[in-house]
């Protein structure tokens, strides 16, 4: 099979898999809805075909609970995968992902603070907004500190991110110990990652950052390709290496922060999706970034479906599901590389 055929096949498979995953996630759950009914209900909403065959209860479950949740899952997965792919080009390292940015611990600190102060129970959207604020503050802090010593280098940003992240994590631990016992659960559930109880407002929050951020990263596909040739060659090809790095780093943080705010920690998506796709569609950004977005979306939609299907007394944490799948995949992939190496 030619490389082009393989790429087209991969895109075709993703183009089929995403709607199928969405449909499965919309119809399965603790109250199963027939897939045909879901499709006809959607058509009815669009003014096509007859009235919806679902009972009113099914309509409510489908449109006010499941749809926003499933769409958030797709955005979270797509966003994390694109960020992973972009950072891997940026650092020229297949093990780079959103965890390097230092915004995750900032988001966690914001979330725990919201719980500690009782906002999470009292005010709508307080927790995701506080988490988002924490992530963006961490980003600003990282930039400000890294800038204080002149033009920030990539390693400067990384180390500052690490330090700011460690500070935020320390703050989170302090708050976690001080938080009242019955609220600890709320925090732990958030830290473990999950999409229970997320509605359209959460979707809007995530989409407001993920979609523009992902589009901007897609537009940077060619500069990222040039950057992957190495700093010197990129500079010789007239790429403003420094500016592109800072821009990509910032965009990645702007996507990853709100994603973490809405979904908590969802590991391995940013590693697995680009890694698997690079073998299928090649390393060029214009293929890899959109394919990673689609694959990440499929991955998290399915992982979220598993998370709410398998837990009896609690939902499984979404972050554990992606780690259960992602960590073994990654070990196998690394072992395969060593074998070839």
């Amino acid at each position, binding site marked *: 099979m030619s490389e082009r055929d393989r790429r087209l096949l991969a895109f075709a498979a993703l183009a089929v898999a995403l709607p199928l995953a969405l449909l499965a996630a919309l119809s399965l759950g603790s109250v199963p809805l027939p897939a045909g009914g879901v499709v006809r209900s959607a058509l009815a909403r669009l003014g096509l075909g007859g009235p919806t065959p679902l009972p009113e209860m099914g309509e409510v479950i489908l449109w006010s609970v499941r749809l926003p949740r499933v769409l958030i899952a797709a955005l979270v997965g797509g966003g994390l995968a694109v960020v992973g792919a972009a950072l891997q080009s940026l650092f020229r390292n297949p093990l780079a992902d959103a965890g390097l940015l230092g915004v995750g611990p900032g988001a966690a600190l914001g979330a725990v603070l919201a719980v500690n102060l009782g906002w999470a*129970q009292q005010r709508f959207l307080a*927790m995701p907004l506080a988490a988002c604020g924490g992530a963006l503050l961490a980003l600003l802090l990282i930039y400000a500190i890294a800038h204080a010593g002149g033009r920030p280098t990539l390693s400067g940003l990384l180390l500052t991110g690490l330090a700011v992240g460690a500070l935020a994590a320390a703050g989170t631990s302090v708050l976690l110990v001080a938080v009242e016992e019955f609220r600890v659960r709320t925090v732990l559930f958030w830290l473990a990652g999950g999409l229970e109880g997320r*509605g359209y407002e959460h979707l809007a929050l995530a989409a407001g950052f993920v979609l523009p951020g992902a589009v901007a990263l897609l537009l940077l596909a060619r500069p990222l390709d040039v950057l992957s040739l190495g700093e010197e060659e990129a500079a010789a090809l007239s790429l403003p290496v420094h500016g592109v790095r800072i821009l990509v780093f910032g965009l990645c943080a702007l996507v990853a922060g709100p994603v973490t705010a809405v979904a908590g920690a969802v590991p391995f998506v940013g590693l697995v999706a680009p890694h698997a796709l690079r073998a299928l569609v090649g390393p060029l950004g214009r293929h890899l970034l959109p394919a990673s977005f689609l694959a990440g979306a499929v991955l998290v939609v399915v992982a979220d479906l598993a998370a709410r299907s398998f837990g009896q007394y609690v939902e499984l944490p979404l972050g554990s599901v992606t780690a259960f799948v992602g960590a073994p995949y990654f070990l196998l992939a690394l072992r395969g590389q060593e074998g070839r190496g």
Partner: protein
Amino acid sequence: MLVVVAAVLLGLASFVVAAEAPRRVASLNLTADELLVEMLPPGRLVAVTRWADDADMSNVAGRVPASAVRLPRADLERLIALRPDLVVVSEYTDADFLRLLEKSGLRHHRMSGLDTLAGIRAAIVDLGSAVGAPEAAVRLTARFDAVLAELGRRLDGTKHPRVLYWADPHTAGVGTAIGSLIEAAGAANVARELGLRGIVPLAGEKAFAADPDVFLVTKGSGAATALLRHPLLSHTRAVREERVVEIPNHLLVALSDRAADAAWWLASRLHPARVPEATPPPKLP
């Protein structure tokens, strides 16, 4: 004109009645489970938590109508499928979850103020009017008041032993139901002396230095044995003199009308001379 006004008033009245008397009530917390089992006819309670049948935690185990669905978790989809017209949630339910309830067309009643006995009493009255069973609430609070009044009468003038609730490393300070329980049972809460508020961790050394007369621990949690083996707290006067009270979990977590019974039970352990029977008389004047 008059007809129109009358019609509007009638419409309003029927709306108010409909709003005040939900036909199908779902409970998302154990306290509401206990109260609603007492308040509502079996057909109107459509869902309780999975803990309602757990004799270790629940004061209504074995009395929950079979028709009520036991929800293993706060699963919004199953909840919507039950078509309740009122969902009773607790103080610590997320605001984001409540918004999603509203968006799904479900009305909710939030129980709050359950950190004092007076707050519990008020919450019973509120819940009664929210589910359209005010007379049941009156019945429950009358008994609640009577038990506490009788307890107060019997404990009048006693010396208050200093009690420390201990769930290593947490204790219960001011503004907690456990703290109120200790005080209602004729004791002083050591955590209050230490200036603690809420369920918060307490360093073992501080607990030792506070030298409580009595440790209050949860029965079946292993806490009593752990105290005996604790490197420091095993040397406290209370542990050495075997003044460790193990309270059954269902009494400790009772934030319903049964909180009065829990106070009575604890008083019977702390003041056996004044309160000899372990359970309060079922009916008091």
